[in-house]
């Protein structure tokens, strides 16, 4: 029901600027997730959109209308806080109804809305309880219910699942995804958790130190990270980066030197690259192939540690140049530490980053 646009949004606390000009278009009904390291300004950006903080510069529009000066209520947003922020002295029912009493809605109408939201979130048997008589997951559902009954144009979540245990997190994540489908509202969601970001988002916005590093669909960010920061941030375990040098560059490929000394050709747009440039070769742990005979590119070294997780395993390989490379593969590995290993690097899965940290466009 609302398209949110940020144009050059800035925020300073006193003299210190923490958000340095963010441009972002959030389409109607889109599910946008903000991710980034701690302190990068995710919560601040969300609170600027909510109207809990005043915007220091730039323009924020909802459906094309400037809302910089509008109170949260006028913006038609609802927010779910990490700490739930339930009124401790009110029952679940009163918590959900409190925000509605102000509008001209009659008692019957409020009652209907609350009961409907409670039914969606399976809170009906808990309506007369106080927050302290609920589990963490139930409290979080009440907080979501309180947001639902307001029928907001934009739903804001600030790390709503971070206080829940792993199992409950998955369950609530699925509920939120379902809620988004059913309600068809714009949702903006802040999280630390990659899995949450990848599974929930239509669009992920990667923030770093108050600027947007990249915004795009989860797969776009995974397959085409725009720079080293995004490449390192998205994906777990982290992408391997190998320092190397350009031997030859063309519009359809770049040839670099592998730690073993062989030449290795990667299908990326190398029009801006020059022979002799220092670059980083990026390869995700899950793309390195163990036990495949390589004629296009290989990485050899000594195994330091093997971690078997059951459904998958990690191998940490020390190469001749001293770099530690992580390999991830399915199943259980019978390899042992202190033995030699050579793995294949599939060229089409590789990334190349220039000395400024920007990615060369992948063509594969």
């Amino acid at each position, binding site marked *: 029901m609302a398209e949110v646009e940020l144009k050059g949004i800035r925020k300073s606390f006193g003299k210190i600027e923490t958000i340095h000009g963010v441009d972002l278009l959030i389409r109607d009904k889109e599910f946008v997730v903000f991710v980034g390291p701690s302190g990068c300004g995710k919560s601040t950006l969300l609170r600027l959109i*909510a*109207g*809990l903080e005043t915007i220091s510069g730039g323009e924020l529009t909802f459906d094309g209308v400037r809302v910089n000066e509008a*109170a*949260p*209520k*006028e913006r038609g*947003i*609802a*927010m779910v*806080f990490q*700490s*739930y*922020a*339930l*009124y*401790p*002295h*009110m029952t679940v029912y*009163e918590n959900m109804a*409190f*925000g509605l009493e*102000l509008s001209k809605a009659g008692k019957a109408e409020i009652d209907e809305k609350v009961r409907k939201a409670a039914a969606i979130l399976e809170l009906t048997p808990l309506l007369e309880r*106080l927050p302290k008589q609920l589990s963490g997951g139930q409290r979080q559902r009440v907080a979501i219910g*309180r947001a639902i009954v*307001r029928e907001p144009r934009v739903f804001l979540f600030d790390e709503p699942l971070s206080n829940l245990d792993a199992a409950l997190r998955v369950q609530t994540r699925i509920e939120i995804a379902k809620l988004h489908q059913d309600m068809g509202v714009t949702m903006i969601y802040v999280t630390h958790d990659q899995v949450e970001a990848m599974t929930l988002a239509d669009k992920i916005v990667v923030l770093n130190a108050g600027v947007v590093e990249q915004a795009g669909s989860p797969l776009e960010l995974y397959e085409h990270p725009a720079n080293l920061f995004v490449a390192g941030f998205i994906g777990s375990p982290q992408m391997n980066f190998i320092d190397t040098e350009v031997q030859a560059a063309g519009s359809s490929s770049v040839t670099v030197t592998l730690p073993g000394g062989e030449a290795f050709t990667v299908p990326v747009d190398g029009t801006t690259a020059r022979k002799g440039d220092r670059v980083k070769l990026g390869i995700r742990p899950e793309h390195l192939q163990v036990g495949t005979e390589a004629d296009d590119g290989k990485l050899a070294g000594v195994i330091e540690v093997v971690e078997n997780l059951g459904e998958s395993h990690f191998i940490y390989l020390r190469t001749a140049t001293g770099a530690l490379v992580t390999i991830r593969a399915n199943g259980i590995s019978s390899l042992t530490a202190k033995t030699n290993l050579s793995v294949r690097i599939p060229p089409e899965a590789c990334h190349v980053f220039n000395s400024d940290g920007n990615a060369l466009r992948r063509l594969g």
Partner: protein
Amino acid sequence: MSGNSALKRSRVRSAWLFLAPMLVVLAMVAGWPLLRTIYFGFTDANLADLGAMKFIGWDNYLARYDGEWSGLLVDLLWWRSVSNTLWFTLFSVTIETILGFVVALVLNAEFPGRGFVRAAVLVPWAIPTIVSAKMWGWMLHDQFGVINDMLMRVGLIHAPIAWAANSETAMWTVVMVDVWKTTPFMALLILAGLQMLPGDIYEAARIDGINPVKVFFRVTLPLVRPALMVAIIFRALDAMRIFDLIYVLTSNSRDTASMSVYARQQLVDFQEVGIGSAASTLLFLVIGIVTVLAITLGKVRLTAEPA
């Protein structure tokens, strides 16, 4: 099981050991004087010759000689001082609570120089009562007082008023000075309560666009109520013992005399240790009853809250 109870016994023993010094001190400084006072209340002790006192039973409270009732319980002056005290307590504590709440809300807001203002607000509380009573006594003086002078200049009054002596204004004057002195204390107690409230619910209320007045009555007040009740009971107990302020401002005027003033007058001015002690005992009982009432009624209200 036996090990458990041995542990419990040793814990109980050490608890008593730690409590003992305090109990002894309390018994000496509070228990003994209290018992002595209660005992004196049943004698005809006189300050001039304490050694000659005799036990006279309930005569200080109520006695009948030649068909005439006498004793404290039929002394109109005593009852006047009881009603003065209760009146004073009711009005001063009510006004202090309301003003204290306002001040606490202001001090709870973020603004530059808040720490300084917090300290500054405490100044009236920090001044010894005798000093502030004397100070106000002069400011309210009918001939030389600055207050009369200001009010006359503004044209609010035409002739100076003897604020502390006039029977219509005396009690209000006492209440006003007490409010001036004690509001900061009340504000600080309430502020402590306010600072315990979670901040996030106020942001939730802002998101929901709930108006601040409603937030105050529906969120702040219910949540701060326990702290508020403690502050009120505390203040009420203090107010019922009021002595110094009234004595300095209005001396023994019957318009303002509190129970403590009455007891002091009997004890010192009339040297009637017996009657004074009986009055003190009654004062103790009245405060006890009001406290029990306040705590039980306060609790009832606390739990009856649709919390």
